[in-house]
């Protein structure tokens, strides 16, 4: 089986190398065949592994020793358990669908081979991340997916917005990684190992230690450090700012990286670290509050966005917030469950949005869409499924996972859980609203694209053929959509085994005090009773109210949104400015850093060190030399005079000696 574990990450890597370095030789078709083959192999091997893990065969072993130093063994190795297996399936399946979809979406792009190379490289990196059995490799995967994300956001490198966004994404992630590295460092220093199993084995011991210099409890400091990393990668408030901008990248990667997989790395990581997080109430509390803020406040921004991709992006932020609150409520399996269902329905939403964008000739503004339903029935239907799942309507996948999160948070005793519960309930209403706003705005109502041509000058290069009827996208686009829509409907039905069947086994540890999930298990009587119960519960009615509001505002009274916006321009303004984070960061951090840099350079290096110390001492030498030179006049009588004075002085001293 070890060979299979190796094949899973290496097959996409090989594809990436071939498409990247031999792209011209193998041609466009060659590039997509070789990468799709690589990912397909990886997917089928993952299925094998999944089956094997279900049969109870887990694995924890080293591939090679990367380095040894100071008693620390740093290795590359795999840990294959149910948690890993789920992630492997999600990553390789979504990746495979996105690879196929890309054939259609990027058909006319000159960087075709490069794109396939990047997304295969991403798949490799993500697999290394989830399959790791130690912190070193985790960090490798963590940064490697960040690199590929950087490359892909900036894929269209001539666009100023794209290269701004990719730099921003990398730097914001680096802020998270800063915390992440400190967390790893604390663990290495106090547990003396980077190996998961060894560290988890010492977790009880770690929980009793305090950090030598700061006096902080080691486990809390380490967990918060690690979680700051997760906040960067999984775009949690206030490090969320990079994710909406990442939409500058081509849509397939928005689906793959910025919705389904990479951004969930933080969620996965915290679940993996459950034996540590469970021992720190403070860390859990921090996690649940951050998650709740993200879930609600990012959802609110989604309701004012008009770019179809950005709506989905903010919805992703909100859903990631849900997952994080689940982590804070010690419901790790629920978080992973939502991660999985979300991967499917969000990929559907993104790829559906991409399909619309193709039909609209790279127009992303929903104000220039409308009425697309009859032109693109498959896209419409799949997006509708995605929206229903996203809003959490039973029996779609999102319902099961979201409802479980809400319940788990309600049962949580962690400080901040009450706030979190209210926030995510409110977010359910908002989620229902923005999901259906997207559906109604883009697919129903007036066909606004017909008279869009007039104010369309700035999009001239994309504007060709704008008056042609929009039509359904080709099969390479719709087939992955359909294949992803199936789990977006049904994946939730796995709730029984995944949450309540002790399916994750030892992969997830829950402290006896955090028994919320056990309580939920008693209440759970199967999928159908849960759906029926769901129909009478508060979240369902909130979501329905949200959807109904959207229907009223965008179908019944489409003139109303503008009026409301005007009436509440203050709030609308705050939301449209996204609470001013971008402006603040640009002014304070980017501007501040440049200011400090310039001050240290001009004031420190140039004025003080070079001006005063270096050139100053040179000038001092020059000045003294100049003074001394004054005595060297070359006039004999002056020298004779000084000699006489000297003789007198010496004689005086001689005669007055004691």
């Amino acid at each position, binding site marked *: 089986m070890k060979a299979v574990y190796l094949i899973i990450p290496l097959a996409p890597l090989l594809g990436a190398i071939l498409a990247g370095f031999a792209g011209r030789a193998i041609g466009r078709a060659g590039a997509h065949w070789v990468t799709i083959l690589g990912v397909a192999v990886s997917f089928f091997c993952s299925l094998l592994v999944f089956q094997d893990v279900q049969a109870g065969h887990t694995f924890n072993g080293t591939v090679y020793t990367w380095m040894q130093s*100071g008693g620390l063994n740093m290795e590359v190795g795999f840990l294959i358990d149910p948690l890993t297996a789920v992630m492997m399936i999600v990553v390789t399946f979504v990746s495979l669908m996105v690879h196929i979809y890309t054939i259609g979406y990027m058909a006319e792009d000159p960087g075709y081979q490069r794109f396939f190379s990047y997304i295969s490289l991403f798949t490799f990196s993500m697999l290394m991340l989830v399959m790791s059995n130690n912190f070193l490799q985790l960090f490798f995967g963590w940064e490697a997916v960040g690199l590929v994300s950087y490359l892909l956001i900036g894929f269209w490198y001539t666009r100023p917005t794209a290269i701004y966004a990719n*730099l921003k994404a990398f730097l914001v992630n680096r802020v998270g990684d800063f915390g992440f590295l400190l967390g790893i460092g604390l663990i290495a220093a106090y547990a003396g190992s980077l190996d998961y199993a060894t560290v988890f084995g010492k977790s009880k011991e770690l929980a009793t230690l305090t950090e030598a210099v700061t006096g902080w409890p080691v486990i809390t400091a380490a967990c918060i450090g690690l979680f700051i990393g997760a906040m960067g990668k999984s775009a949690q408030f206030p490090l969320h700012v990079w994710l909406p901008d990442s939409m500058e990248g081509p849509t397939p990667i928005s689906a793959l990286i910025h919705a389904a997989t990479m951004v969930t790395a933080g969620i996965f990581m915290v679940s993996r670290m459950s034996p540590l997080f469970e021992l720190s109430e403070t860390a859990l509390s921090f996690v649940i509050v951050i998650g709740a803020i993200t879930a609600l406040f990012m959802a609110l921004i989604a309701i004012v966005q008009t770019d179809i991709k950005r709506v989905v992006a903010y919805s992703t932020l909100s859903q990631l917030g849900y997952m994080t609150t689940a982590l804070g409520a010690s419901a790790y399996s629920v978080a992973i469950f939502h991660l999985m269902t979300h991967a499917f329905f969000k990929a559907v939403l993104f790829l559906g949005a991409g399909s619309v964008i193709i039909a609209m000739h790279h127009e992303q503004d929903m104000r220039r869409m409308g009425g697309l339903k009859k032109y693109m029935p498959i896209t419409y239907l799949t997006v509708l499924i995605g929206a229903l799942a996203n809003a959490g309507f039973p029996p779609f996948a999102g319902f099961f996972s979201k409802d479980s999160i809400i319940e788990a948070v309600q049962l949580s005793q962690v400080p901040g859980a009450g706030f979190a519960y209210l926030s995510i309930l409110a977010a359910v209403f908002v989620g229902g609203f923005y999901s259906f706003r997207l559906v109604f705005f883009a697919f129903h109502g007036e066909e606004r694209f017909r008279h869009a041509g007039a104010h369309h000058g700035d999009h001239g290069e994309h504007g060709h053929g704008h008056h042609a009827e929009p039509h359904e996208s080709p099969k390479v686009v719709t087939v992955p959509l359909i294949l992803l829509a199936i789990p977006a409907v049904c994946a939730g039905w796995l709730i029984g085994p995944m949450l309540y069947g002790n399916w994750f086994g030892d992969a997830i540890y829950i402290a006896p005090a955090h028994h919320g999930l056990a309580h939920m298990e008693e209440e759970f009587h199967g999928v159908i009773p849960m759906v029926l119960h769901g129909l009478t519960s508060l979240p369902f009615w909130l979501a329905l109210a949200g959807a109904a509001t959207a229907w009223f505002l965008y179908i019944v009274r489409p003139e109303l949104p503008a009026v409301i916006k005007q009436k509440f321009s203050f709030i609308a303004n705050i939301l449209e400015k996204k609470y001013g984070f971008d402006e603040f960061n640009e002014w304070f951090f980017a501007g501040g850093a440049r200011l400090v840099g*310039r001050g240290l350079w001009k004031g*420190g290096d140039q004025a003080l060190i070079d001006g005063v110390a270096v050139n100053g001492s040179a000038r001092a030498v020059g000045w003294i030399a100049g003074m001394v030179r004054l005595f060297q006049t070359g006039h004999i009588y002056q020298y004779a005079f000084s000699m006489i004075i000297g003789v007198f002085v010496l004689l005086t001293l001689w005669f007055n000696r004691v």
Partner: protein
Amino acid sequence: MSSHLLSLAIWVPIVGALFVFAVGAERRRAARWLSLAVAIAGFLVTLPIVAHFDPAAAGFQFIELAPWIQRFNVQYYLGVDGISVLFIALNSFITVLVVLAGWQVIEDKTSQYMGAFLVMSGLMNGIFSSLDAMLFYVFFEASLIPMYVIIGVWGGPNRVYAAFKFFLYTLLGSLLMLISLIWLFLEAGGTFNLVDWYNLKISLAPQILLFLAFLVAFAVKVPMWPVHTWLPDAHVEAPTGGSVVLAAIMLKLGAYGFLRFSLPIAPDASHELAPLMIGLSLIAVIYIGFVALVQSDMKKLIAYSSIAHMGFVTLGFFIFNQIGMEGALVQMISHGFVSAAMFLCVGVMYDRMHSRQIADYGGVVNTMPKFAALFLFFAMANCGLPATSGFVGEFMVVLGAIKANFWIGFAAATTLILGAAYTLWMYKRVAFGAVANKHVGELTDINAREFVVLGLLAVSVLAMGLYPFPFTDIMHASVDNLLKHVAVSKL
């Protein structure tokens, strides 16, 4: 095993250089090929040193001992341990690349240019293998001359100021070192033998004076804040090859000096003054990181980034744990590859555009895609991305620093953000975007020679990032030995 290999590593390039000089300024082609042959021969003789080095032994190996100046008991005493052996190989490797990098670029006095680099290469191997303090000092000082000439003759418009600044700065430090060496010579009863000096008992006050004298000498070379301002000037004016050798090897001499002299000779002073050293190192990481951010000249930016990276090296030395010290050594080797590559990348663009100003570029990726890919790879290595060599040392030093004191680790880890900010912001403005002007539009992608040079470095950076095991394995015993030695008081 005959052990004249170290002598060969020193004298093959120097004697070869004499032949290169003899070729004369007119026969450029012959000078180039001969230089390449000498450089490769110089590199090849270092391979058996690495291959036959016994990593389990902590002491010096490949020892050569002969009297030199008997009146003062100065010996021709050579040997390497796990700390120095890799630098000899690195130095000789970089020399080959420098010869290749200057191939079509240097049209003026080609033979002298190539010869100067070969001489320097031999001298620096001498520095890394000297076990006699006076021999070390002679090599250390002599290595200034070729670099002074390289900057002063083949440099940019302001080369004379830069060459003087470089020379005076480093000379100032060296004089204090010479005084210390003479003091130690007398104290040790008339020997310059370093190994004897290691066992010398010295009380704290002279130890501190010795440490400070060495500090001035070595801090200038590293360079550490605040004696670093010669470096950006020297880099900006130096020809590409000069910058490469300066960054890749010469800066390592100062750091190496700390390990060879300061720590083992004055261990108590080292512990006493460690807070100062750590403070200066962190200033280098943070202060210089901010300064690098606002540079408009690419070479200056990379020069500042070098200072910040060297801050990690000195930090790793003075936290006194194995992972920190080995991380610092790994960082030195990695920085040899990465900074060399970064300067070569700027050189590639400078040869075409005759500008180092970031503002003159933009959208280079459109016209030089192959180059842009390599440049990005090195930029990522410069900001310490895992799987590149740049990550290994930084990661180890940060882990070591957190072990020593959380706040030191905290300050050091800011490089994750600062390093990425200055490197990638520069990369964005130079490489990404639409073609900025017609000069960028006319650029041609790298040729085979440039591809080979950058490709070799890329392979080295990647190999070291994916499998650093052999690099640290070779240094374990010596580092362990040094740390044990430093832990014992000499009072």
